């Protein structure tokens, strides 16, 4: 257990398999908690339903990125070709839009990919090098074979004793109080 001076962040329990974690998440949602999270070494499918998570808004971000990339790419080429540096090359018209397709396409992909990657990190608030869960030594197994569930005390109906009892009932073990030492 960590330093009692630091404020409590939440109560964390370990589970032995993805299945038991999914069942526990269902009961935690059913008990009315919303400020909780589960931690797994790989994406567990079905847990997003059990945790009642909203679908990711990322596709919309990527759509915006792609539209931006394509229009910026096409716009740049058009401006350069008819205004910025208007040169007749091999007798082609200045606005030879057919020739602009490859670069427009590549920039659409490039900016969509930027939106997908940096959008995902932004939504997840990463990089975040400190988080209270990292204060727990046992949490190191989360990237190997550990499955954890933590109910945060920011939850409106958080009650230390009730949370302990709920996690224990769901088959959680190594139940610890996680303190924010940051």
């Amino acid at each position: 257990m960590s330093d009692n001076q630091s404020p409590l962040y939440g109560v964390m329990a370990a589970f032995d398999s993805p299945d038991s974690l999914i069942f526990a998440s269902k009961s935690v949602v059913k008990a009315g908690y919303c400020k909780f999270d589960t931690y797994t070494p790989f994406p567990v499918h079905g847990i997003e339903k059990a945790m009642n998570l909203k679908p990711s808004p990322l596709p919309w971000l990527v759509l915006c990125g792609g539209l931006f990339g394509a229009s910026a790419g096409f716009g740049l080429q058009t401006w350069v070709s008819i205004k910025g540096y208007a040169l007749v090359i091999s007798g082609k018209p200045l606005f030879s839009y057919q020739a602009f397709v490859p670069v427009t396409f590549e920039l659409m992909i490039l900016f969509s990919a930027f939106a997908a990657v940096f959008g995902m990190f932004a939504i997840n608030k990463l990089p975040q090098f400190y988080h209270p869960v990292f204060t727990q030594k046992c949490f190191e197994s989360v990237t190997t074979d550990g499955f954890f569930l933590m109910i945060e005390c920011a939850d409106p109906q958080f009650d230390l004793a009730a949370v302990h009892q709920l996690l224990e009932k769901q088959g959680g073990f190594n139940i610890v109080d996680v303190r924010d030492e940051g």
Partner: protein
Amino acid sequence: MSKYSEHPAVARTVLVKGDTSYEAITEIVHRPAITKPPKWWHIGLSAGITGIALLFSMIGYLLFEGVGVWGLNNPVGWGYAIVNFVFWVGIGHAGTLISAILFLFRQNWRTSINRFAEAMTIFAVICALIFPGIHIGRVWAAHWLFPIPNQMAMWPNFRSPLLWDVFAVSTYFTVSLLFWFVGLVPDLATFRDRAKTKISKFVYGIFSLGWRGSSRHWLHYEKAYLLLAALATPLVLSVHSIVSFDFAVSQVPGWHTTIFPPYFVAGAIFSGFAMVVTLMVVARKLFGLESMITDRHLEIMNMIILATGTMVGYAYAMEFFVAWYSGNVVEQYAFVNRAFGPYWWAYWIMVSCNVISPQLFWFKKIRTTPWLMFVVTIFVNIGMWFERFVITVTSLSRDFLPSSWGYYSPTWVDVMTFVGSFGLFFTLLLLFMKFLPMIAISEIKAVLPHDHADHETNKGGSNE
């Protein structure tokens, strides 16, 4: 687990053999990072660094003396540099193909090899990018390739396929790097949590961005990965198409053909898969990864090599047919000259390596025996280099006017620069094998046949 192994589809493709516990998988993949590298690794690394030194001294010599140190002449203004560029970019197609296209097709066997193939892609594209960079002659003006505002108010010509190539290859490199990095983040977190020293904990900690495996993060993470795969799929097909435009949009007989984009893409997949198999056969042996990169994985790869090799053979034949059918005398001469002209030897090396050797993979024994497939894929690698040599050099050396025909031979500087680029490639690859997870740990755990709750929505895990 038993109910899964009885299922016929699963019995056909056991993706991981031996101990399949989460702990065991992490341990196997993490082992090279914490154990002292074996002797051959040091030998390989010193050879690789020697190669880099060779590469950079050749580049230095080129910059000091000028492109006259290369074998280029009139009419052959494109020689080794372009051949090597297309060769390396072609190899660099396997990684993203395996990662993106096979991901969209739910080919779960890819999880064992995608990380390695992606790394190989990035290193091959780095090698590729060097060649057009030094080929432009005045290297100090290389930034003119990009549309950067400048005091001369000068802009690139967006109607040129060479400019399209700049965008295609640099986009490909950037997106491949992002894709690779996104895939690495959870595995870097694994390395962070198991790090033995303070420095490695710090470095892996920085690059894993504080990943903590939160399910709320995995939700967006998987969506991002899926979107990247969907974006990279048309990208990988576009890149070698655009590389082929460098040739196809020109009017040189032998280059000016519409078959080039699909033919180049098939060739790129062919050469890339061959390089992956060549490297995998060695790497899995040396690092004891046979339980995760099984003979079955290599066999599937070899089947794809067989399929794409046959497509390439078809393209060679079709080029001849179209040249004959076009009724164009110059075009017809260009192809007769390819097979029977002064570069006949290069043409027949290409045909034997690319068309004949992959046909050996019809035999199960050859496509499942590591040393035999190693030999075949080495031939494919050689053949694909010669393909680019044949396309580039034979067409240019005898173009329109017989009075301006010539013969191209590389100089020692050409050859040593190419040899040096292998040094760069293998150095990066050896560093990757030592310090980074060679197999996608979190992905392979998700395809293990146990502990799944929700089988219908199991996007990465169902064995079909």
